[in-house]
């Protein structure tokens, strides 16, 4: 039996590496992105094999699903830009010149990069082999957490949730800050926020499918959040599900939420605010981020619930910032803004 499982592991590992190479060298960028989504799903299987079901859930939803959606969205808006450019060139009589990306500086890639990478690979494999073969000095903390009554003080019985929100809560607290910074940066850079959006009519099949699936997804997200205290699941997985719901609604013609609205800003920060409030409240009886043992379970669930809302809002904002596909109003408007640089290429730096 173990032989078959190891064969499965080896096949999966080989497939992962093969798909990774395929992602890099596929002829078409669209093909690369689809391969990357497949890679994420296979990686989720690998993580089930490594007994990390929490992570398999997160990887399938965030690593494969949302990242793939972000890439496809970015590719679509790039294509849309260059399509505008082509029609514009035809209208104004310019010959379509090389795609802009081919004119980006390709130098700066030294010739020794490939051998260096190969050496790096060999070195890494060697180092990891040594570190695995060498006897492991520190035993795993998992048996202690599982058998010890420490987990009761942790407030939850899912060890990953306990680590995330109690034993190493600093990480999670600062992670939410990182997410908020990412939202600010994306909003500052995103191209399509300058365009005016008009909701385009989606296909009726998609619209009624979304109407059916959205309540179900919200229900599943709530379940995943609640079960996260004692089994695989938790705030991040639930947030990923909610964010996927938001993405679906946008694809079906919904408008992305505007960060100018105060209530959307409250959605974005409510998780961090609650987390900070609980962390500071812990200082009354103990230290920063220390929960009173009898309240720990309830407090963790409260933090997780608000974190779910905030992280879902953040992920939706990250996607919505560049969302522009299927938007005829944006295309014509982009054509207008692109017209100026073509006639006057010297003084157009924004």
């Amino acid at each position: 039996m173990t032989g078959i499982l190891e064969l499965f592991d080896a096949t999966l590992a080989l497939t992962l590496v093969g798909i990774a190479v395929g992602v890099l060298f596929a002829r078409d960028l669209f093909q690369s992105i689809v391969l990357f989504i497949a890679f994420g799903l296979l990686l989720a299987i690998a993580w089930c094999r490594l007994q990390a079901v929490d992570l398999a859930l997160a990887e399938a939803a965030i690593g494969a699903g949302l990242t793939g959606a972000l890439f496809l969205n970015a590719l679509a808006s790039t294509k849309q830009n260059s399509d505008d450019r082509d029609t514009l060139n035809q209208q104004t009589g310019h010959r379509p010149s090389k795609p802009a990306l081919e004119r980006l500086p390709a130098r700066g890639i030294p010739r020794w990069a490939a051998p260096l990478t190969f050496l790096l690979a060999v070195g890494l494999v060697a180092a990891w082999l040594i570190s695995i073969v060498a006897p492991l000095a520190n035993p795993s903390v998992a048996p202690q957490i599982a058998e010890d009554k420490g987990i009761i003080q942790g407030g939850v019985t899912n060890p990953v949730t306990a680590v995330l929100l109690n034993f190493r809560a600093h990480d999670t607290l600062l992670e939410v800050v990182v997410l908020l910074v990412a939202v600010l940066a994306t909003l500052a850079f995103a191209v399509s926020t300058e365009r005016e959006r008009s909701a385009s009519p989606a296909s009726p099949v998609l619209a009624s499918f979304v109407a059916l699936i959205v309540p179900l997804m919200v229900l599943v997200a709530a379940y995943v959040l609640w079960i996260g205290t004692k089994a695989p699941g938790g705030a991040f997985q639930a947030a990923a599900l909610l964010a996927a719901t938001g993405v679906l609604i946008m694809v079906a013609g919904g408008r992305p939420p505007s960060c100018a609205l105060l209530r959307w800003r409250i959605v974005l920060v409510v998780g961090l605010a609650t987390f900070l409030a609980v962390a500071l409240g812990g200082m009354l009886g103990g230290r920063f981020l220390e929960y009173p043992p009898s309240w720990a379970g309830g407090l963790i669930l409260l933090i997780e619930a608000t974190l779910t809302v905030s992280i879902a809002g953040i992920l939706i904002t990250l996607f919505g910032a560049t969302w522009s596909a299927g938007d005829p109003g944006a295309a014509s408007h982009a054509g207008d803004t692109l017209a100026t640089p073509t006639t006057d290429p010297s003084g157009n730096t924004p």
Partner: protein
Amino acid sequence: MTSILIYSIAGALLFSVGMGGMFVCTHPFRKILAMNLAGSGVFLVFLAMAQRHPDTPPDPVPQALVLTGIVVAVSATAVALALSGRVIALANDHQPPERSHGAQECETE
């Protein structure tokens, strides 16, 4: 122990493939894909390390770190995509008619 070994090696290879891709690929989207592949390699090694013995449950600390890593990776990807989308849009805007070929070199630097 053997499956830990298999996934560790796969993680190391994935990291190198991703790292090489960041050097070799020219399109920014492909570079970002390569960055994600390299990150997945690191996660794979972390998770293989989390399972120190096949019989005991895996160590939750690396798992929690990787969960944090996945979420940070997606936000970093979103920022990188927005940035490169802006770069592409600017390169499109600066696409000059054939006459000013010299000026284009300076702009794309």
